[in-house]
């Protein structure tokens, strides 16, 4: 479906990554693969470093740390927002929602609309949709959109296909009504028939976590995972992205009558370097317009890779000027979504570390 929003803007952005950094070389011995084969893949996929939490850090810990920082620095008032949307696939609990944990932990007021969304790699865009819609209410003038995942805790350390790429991270975006600069055009598609392409089979009520679901099993290809761990049909997801994402972006440009050359940046979800380069080739985009350094510096943190791409690559630009950007996210569900939006000038844009 096509979506259109007017008078909405992102006014501030903070990305938070764990201080703990691990390199692919440090972890290579834990995988059951010849080193030479792994090193070839490192070059292609962009395996290098990733940021993962130490111990039992949860989504709300990350979010509270980031919000506290904003309160302390006077960038957001404790009572200065009316809704909090938390997008995560790694909630603290099945119930209550993580947004309530954050609200309670930070002793925020009761007159606040707390909402969790279970979304992954398209989660920044889906979260923006929800935040923009909330601002239709006169009593809501500012929304805090939190994207957060600690999926390293749900990926097998013996899964060479996923573990080296996964990253933990959080982002906090401030969403407000804004003057009409240009409409925000977007589109969204979802396909639950392909839901098993990316899933964590156990831990819900369909298959409760147990000692049996924690047993590591070989996938027949030297990767070992339990039913408690994230599973991905790698080639299936790759084909989904390559067949759906370039046409989705072309549709968005066509329906909004926006020439591709008019855009300053294409900020995609970043699963791996190879996938992004193939999308860029399909759209005939110069690589410099599509930052692809997030996965090699921080890892794939699902819905947080787009905010990190902004904070890491564009932070000095977006606080000074407006940039015409195309955002695109794709992943679990399956979900694919894109958006044309002017980013900036923001009140703040920063990237900090969680100790």
């Amino acid at each position: 479906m096509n979506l259109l929003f007017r008078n909405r803007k992102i006014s501030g952005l903070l990305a938070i990554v764990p201080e703990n950094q691990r390199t692919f070389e440090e972890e290579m011995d834990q995988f059951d693969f010849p080193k030479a084969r792994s090193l070839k893949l490192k070059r292609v996929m962009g395996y290098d470093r990733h940021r993962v939490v130490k111990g039992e850090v949860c989504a709300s810990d990350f979010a509270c740390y980031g919000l506290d920082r904003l309160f302390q620095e006077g960038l957001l008032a404790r009572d200065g927002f009316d809704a909090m949307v938390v997008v995560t696939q790694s909630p603290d609990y099945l119930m209550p929602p993580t947004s309530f944990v954050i609200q309670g932990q930070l002793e925020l007021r009761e007159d606040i609309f707390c909402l969790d969304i279970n979304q992954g790699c398209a989660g920044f865009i889906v979260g923006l949709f929800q935040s923009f819609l909330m601002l239709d209410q006169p009593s809501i003038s500012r929304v805090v959109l939190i994207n957060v995942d600690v999926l390293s805790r749900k990926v097998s350390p013996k899964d060479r296909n996923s573990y080296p790429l996964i990253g933990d991270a959080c982002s906090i975006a401030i969403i407000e009504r804004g003057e009409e600069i240009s409409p925000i055009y977007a589109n969204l598609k979802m396909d639950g028939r392909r839901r098993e392409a990316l899933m964590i089979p156990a831990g819900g009520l369909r298959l409760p976590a147990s000692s049996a679901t924690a047993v590591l099993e070989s996938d027949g290809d030297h990767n070992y995972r339990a039913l408690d761990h994230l599973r991905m049909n790698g080639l299936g997801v790759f084909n989904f992205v390559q067949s759906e994402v370039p046409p989705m972006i072309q549709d968005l440009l066509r329906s909004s009558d926006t020439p591709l050359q008019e855009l300053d940046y294409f900020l995609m979800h970043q699963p791996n370097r190879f996938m992004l380069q193939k999308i860029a080739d399909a759209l005939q985009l110069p690589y410099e317009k599509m930052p692809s350094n997030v996965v090699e510096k921080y890892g794939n943190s699902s819905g947080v890779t787009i905010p990190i791409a902004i904070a890491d690559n564009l932070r000095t630009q977006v606080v000074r000027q407006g940039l015409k950007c195309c955002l695109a996210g794709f992943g679990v569900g399956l979900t694919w979504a894109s958006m044309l939006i002017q980013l900036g000038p923001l009140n703040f844009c920063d990237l900090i570390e969680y100790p």
Partner: protein
Amino acid sequence: MAFGLTVSQTASWFAAGEHKLETVANVLQSIRPEADFSSSSNFISDGLLDSFDIVTLVSELDRTFNVSIPGIEIVPENFSSIPAIEILLQKHLPQ
């Protein structure tokens, strides 16, 4: 069958001085040095290439032949044998 070709096909391709065929074989061997591609009729179903090997193979083929194999064509059947890879490459090599 050798490299997914009949013996006579292999012989005729090499006899024709088909350098590309040899190069593809070398690229495959560099990715999986321990694998015996010459006795396989289907690299995927025989377990010689997994999805991540295909990604590595595409990257090597792109680099070696100076092409960009479109993402939409990165499906297992296009990498199941040397002729399949050859057909894919032919579509994207400059004429």
